[in-house]
């Protein structure tokens, strides 16, 4: 009895623990950054149900992972100037976290730290150390490294209509990997320079006259950039930590009005913590037209119906809901190459269902239904189902084709002719014999 009750209690604590850790966040916060200065950001996270645990970079506990199993769902690294960490935080361990589906929010700075070399592994190219972003526009009383950045509304990550956000920190150039998700771009008139005074502005002018070679400037640079891995874990690199601060969330813009920092960092956190744009394939099924079960194998030229069910995660109710919002989904029917590539459109009237009917190619072999939908910001959707396509069995071919009637007529008339010939031959036997004999004589 006691054993049973203790087992029950253990089970209960285990379940409550897993529920609590279902949205647990470890915040590695540099002691120089006061937690109170980021109360709007952290308070907003706690209000949305995240369980925050704070830790300094050099603390050894709580550990990020125990025996290779991550202890937290998400990790925020707000230690942009820290050069040395406790043993469990290394670029390798952070990459390991990503492959275990833990998400990372990382703040960088103009200083050279282990995290800047980690960013390079994610195809972000950082300018030389101690070169913060500088902009002289628009005219304002703040220092030239404190810049209001206009937010582009084209990214699906951000809600539309966010006012400009204050930014201080380092920009980065974006490499060529398609897994990068640009969230915030640098203003066109901004540049990265190795001095906060205007003393070497001549060097900048010279560089721009050479076609901008070696110049870190313009709106192609990113300030906040996301990266989604192949296992759909997400990491965001922000060029500076101050954009998350209370000071920047309340500082009035030069044009007047409140800045968009609070809204912007909320959207970024929602994306990186998988609360937004998270999709999954619930299931796929395929069958012949007029049937409902998937056959063991298809025959060439069969009419095939393929259906996919896709859901999106709703963070407010923590449930998956059918999602019909994808209008560029494609289905491929491949054997080495896609023999058929067709658009897989949502079925009106049944949410989350995408269906297409197509004719199997006149080609037998081992085929795959392939769904491969990768869009910036959204979870990757991938599905592959292998089916054999066989030629028709010997009794499945069409017979008595109209094109063959001359051949049928030829064979039938020859047979009929043979019977007629035989009948006449036998009937005319006696008479013919006599005639033949008389002829010969």
């Amino acid at each position: 009895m006691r054993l049973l009750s203790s087992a029950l209690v253990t089970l209960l604590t285990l379940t409550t623990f897993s529920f609590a850790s279902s949205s647990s966040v470890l915040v590695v916060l540099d002691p120089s950054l006061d937690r109170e200065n980021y109360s709007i950001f952290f308070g907003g996270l706690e209000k949305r149900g995240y369980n925050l645990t704070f830790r300094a970079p050099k603390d050894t506990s709580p550990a990020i992972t125990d025996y290779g199993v991550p202890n937290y769902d998400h990790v925020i690294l707000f230690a942009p100037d820290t050069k040395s960490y406790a043993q469990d935080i290394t670029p390798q361990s952070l990459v390991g976290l990503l492959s275990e589906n833990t998400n990372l929010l990382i703040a960088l700075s103009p200083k050279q730290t282990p995290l800047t070399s980690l960013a390079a592994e994610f195809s972000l190219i950082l300018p030389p150390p101690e070169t913060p972003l500088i902009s002289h526009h628009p005219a304002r009383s703040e220092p030239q490294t404190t810049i209001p950045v206009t937010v582009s509304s084209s990214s699906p990550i951000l809600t539309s209509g966010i006012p400009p956000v204050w930014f201080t920190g380092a920009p980065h150039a974006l490499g060529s990997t398609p897994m990068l998700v640009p969230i915030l771009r640098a203003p066109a008139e901004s540049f990265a320079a190795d001095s906060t005074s205007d003393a070497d502005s001549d060097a900048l002018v010279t560089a721009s006259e050479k076609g901008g070679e070696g110049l870190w400037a313009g709106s192609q640079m990113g300030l906040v950039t996301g990266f989604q891995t192949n296992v759909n874990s997400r990491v965001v690199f922000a060029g500076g930590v101050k954009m998350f601060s209370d000071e920047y969330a309340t500082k009035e813009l030069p044009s007047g009005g409140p800045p968009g920092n609070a809204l912007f960092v909320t959207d970024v956190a929602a994306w990186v913590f998988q609360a937004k744009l998270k999709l999954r394939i619930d299931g796929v099924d395929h069958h012949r037209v007029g049937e409902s079960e998937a056959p063991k194998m298809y025959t060439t030229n069969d009419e095939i119906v393929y259906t996919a069910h896709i859901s999106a995660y709703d963070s407010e109710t923590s449930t998956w809901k059918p999602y019909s919002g994808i209008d560029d989904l494609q289905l491929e029917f491949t054997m080495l190459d896609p023999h058929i590539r067709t658009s897989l459109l949502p079925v009106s009237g049944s949410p989350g269902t995408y269906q297409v009917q197509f004719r199997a190619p006149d080609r037998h072999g081992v085929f795959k239904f392939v769904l491969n939908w990768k869009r910036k910001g959204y979870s990757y959707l991938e599905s592959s189902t292998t089916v054999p396509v066989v030629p028709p069995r010997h009794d499945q071919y069409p017979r008595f084709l109209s094109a063959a009637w001359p051949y049928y007529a030829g064979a039938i008339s020859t047979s009929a002719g043979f019977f007629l010939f035989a009948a006449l031959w036998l009937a005319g036997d006696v008479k013919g014999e006599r005639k033949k004999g008389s002829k010969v004589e």
Partner: protein
Amino acid sequence: MAGPKSSSKPSPASSETYVAVSTLWKSYLDQTPDRLKFIDAFLAFTVLSGVLQFVYCVLVTNFPFNAFLAGFASSVGQFVLTASLRAQVNPENRSEFKEVSPERAFADFALGSIVLHFFVFNFLG
């Protein structure tokens, strides 16, 4: 048949080829036994049938190729069997086929044809 042919004979007599062909035709009509003429008519029919099927195959389609093979083989096979029959029942070849009576020849022909048509119709569909 023979009447109009012979009446139209004298008008283009200038052509030697025509004379030769018409002489051949006339001697065929005069000297061939009726039995062999009957066989020849059947041979002509199988040749015509085979040629028509081959032309259709070349010009239109050979798509159900098995049907073409069956139809064409039926014509060719029947032609071969009938030609053999003709050789065996021809009185002029009696010295060649001493032990084969015309009745035996016809029985062989009939059996061969039935086997041929059995295969043809199996292969046709």
